[in-house]
């Protein structure tokens, strides 16, 4: 028989344990929700058309014009009207008499220009089909502001994943092209460049702090590295824009210094703290008898470091490199300020380049419909990048555990 006091204690224990459990699951809930939002929005463009029906929108028409679409009288012009495939006739009155316009819709047509065709439209009108899947008939009105417009918007067909991943043209607004190859190459170019610059310097600095630096100097260097890690990325970007970009512009005589090289330099510096601290901690974790063994055989301090200590700390250092790669891929604002942001396949280290993350940051606030879904699709690509990195880190840690 449990005493009342005992029951009370058990209830309190039960409450706290489950509260803590609930809090621990918050990270699972967050990852699942993030995954759900990014993936559910990001896969849509590849599985179905951008909207379910073709619509026609009549601009600057008034109820008094007796507008009839397929014989049905229209009064409210704020909303768009759905159109099925096939022939449609639009009739309305003008001071000069009755005008009729035929619109033939063939939404499955391969050629976007043929999806909506106007026939026997008034002479004063002009067709604008610069935006794919959208045909706008401008009808000259009395004042420049008063031109009537008949705009037909046909749903964009499902987009192919290969065109998305390997298409070399990102032209979302008018040509509705969503190829992100330029951005993938931009991201790879910038991050690999940053690794080439940042990793050697980072590892060697880590070696100095862990192995060679006298105690007092190491005590100064560690906080310095922490401070470098603490500086916000925008400050790095700003510094790059103010110093690195003009320098590149002068040295290479370019129209503008914003380029992949500028992004590489900035990102290379930004990943230094990650590489340095991982190198230093894994070197310090190497037990002394490794070093003594090598020194006892007459090797110099430098030889000991490079042939024994670093090999022993190899997977820790590699994890640092992978973490640095992850940080470089994820960086956005600093890159936007210095990379030039043109969505093109970079042909040299000096060309202006745009990364995956910058595209999302630059266009998300105004993109809508399929364009915004495509930005979520870029989010998925970044997600996959990160999962691969995490797996690499896990394999490295497991390997570290072996010896």
């Amino acid at each position, binding site marked *: *028989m*449990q*005493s009342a*006091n*005992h029951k009370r*204690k058990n209830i309190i224990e039960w409450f706290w344990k489950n509260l803590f459990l609930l809090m621990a699951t918050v990270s699972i809930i967050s990852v699942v929700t993030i995954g759900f939002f990014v993936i559910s929005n990001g896969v849509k463009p590849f599985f179905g058309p951008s909207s379910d029906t073709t619509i026609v929108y009549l601009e600057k028409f008034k109820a008094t014009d007796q507008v009839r679409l397929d014989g049905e009288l229209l009064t409210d012009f704020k909303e768009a009207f759905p159109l099925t495939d096939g022939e449609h006739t639009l009739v309305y009155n003008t001071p000069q008499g009755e005008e009729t316009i035929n619109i033939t819709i063939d939404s499955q047509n391969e050629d976007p220009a043929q999806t909506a065709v106007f026939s026997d439209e008034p002479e004063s009108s002009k067709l604008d089909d610069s935006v794919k899947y959208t045909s706008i008939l401008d009808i000259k009105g009395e004042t420049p502001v008063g031109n009537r417009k008949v705009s037909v918007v046909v749903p964009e067909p499902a987009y192919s994943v290969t065109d998305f991943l390997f298409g070399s043209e990102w032209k979302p607004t008018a040509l509705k092209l969503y190829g992100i190859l330029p951005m993938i190459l931009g991201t790879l170019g910038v991050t690999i460049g940053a690794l080439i610059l940042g990793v050697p310097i980072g590892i060697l600095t880590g070696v100095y702090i862990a192995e060679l630096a006298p105690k007092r100097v190491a005590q100064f260097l560690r906080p310095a590295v922490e401070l470098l890690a603490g500086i916000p990325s925008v400050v790095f970007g700003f510094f790059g824009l103010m110093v690195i970009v003009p320098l590149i512009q002068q040295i290479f005589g370019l129209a503008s210094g914003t380029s992949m090289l500028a992004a590489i330099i900035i990102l290379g510096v930004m990943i230094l703290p990650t590489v340095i601290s991982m190198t230093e901690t894994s070197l310090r974790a190497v037990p002394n008898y490794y070093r003594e063994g090598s020194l006892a055989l007459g090797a110099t301090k430098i030889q000991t470091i490079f042939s024994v200590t670093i090999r022993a700390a190899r997977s820790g250092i590699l994890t640092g490199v992978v973490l640095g790669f992850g940080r470089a891929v994820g960086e956005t604002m600093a890159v936007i300020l210095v990379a030039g942001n043109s969505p093109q396949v970079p042909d040299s280290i000096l060309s202006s380049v745009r990364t995956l993350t910058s595209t999302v940051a630059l266009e998300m606030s105004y993109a809508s419909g399929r364009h915004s879904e495509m930005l979520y699709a870029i989010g998925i690509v970044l997600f996959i990048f990160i999962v691969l990195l995490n797996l690499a880190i896990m394999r490295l840690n497991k390997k570290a555990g072996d010896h």
Partner: protein
Amino acid sequence: MAENNKFEVENLDLFYGEFQALKSITMDIEANKVTAFIGPSGCGKSTFLRTLNRMNDLIDTVRIDGEIKLDGQDIYKKDVDVTDLRRRVGMVFQKPNPFPMSIYDNVVYGPRAQGIKDKKKLDEIAESSLRAAALWDEVKDKLNKSGLALSGGQQQRLCIARTIAMKPEIILMDEPTSALDPIATLKVEQLMEELKKEYTIVIVTHSMQQAARISDTTAFFLMGELIEMGDTNDIFSNPKKQQTEDYITGRFG
């Protein structure tokens, strides 16, 4: 069941996952006596001690069969209040582990956890416990100093003081003096002479001299089994089992 038995243990088995650490231990522990557990390191004496106040519950892989009764009640039954059990069966650890708090907070930690809030009452408990642990005179004017700032011997007596503050019936001691210098060890042993008047004491020690000096009953463990148990003088003068004799005369272990 002899009326003055505190613990009755019936063929107790204990497993760490697959490994069996204790094999069918059966013994009685008399009240107001000092019982010593001796045996080579790894023989299971500390593990057995920790089953008496269910400290082994902290380890997930531990599994227990058999029965341990305290005053006739099986302590591993489902509805036993573990915290109440540990209040009645205090424990002093090998390495002194005062909390990173003041000496005063250390001593009154237990009573406060039980819900005693009245400052005056806590002051009384603190003084009486520190006096009982022969530490009052050395710390009475620096009660707010951190417990960690005391010497090893003082820290161990502080731990004894905070155990006493819970008014336990039994005090378990897991090699209490192995981390202390000889002078501090002597002090703690004199303290135990006093304590055994009021409390049942069970002490694990790897020093046979200590067992001989302070204990009334001694139990000899080997490879997880209880080899022999009896009056301390009998065990040390004419042990019945050959293995006990080998251990006592220092042939092994």
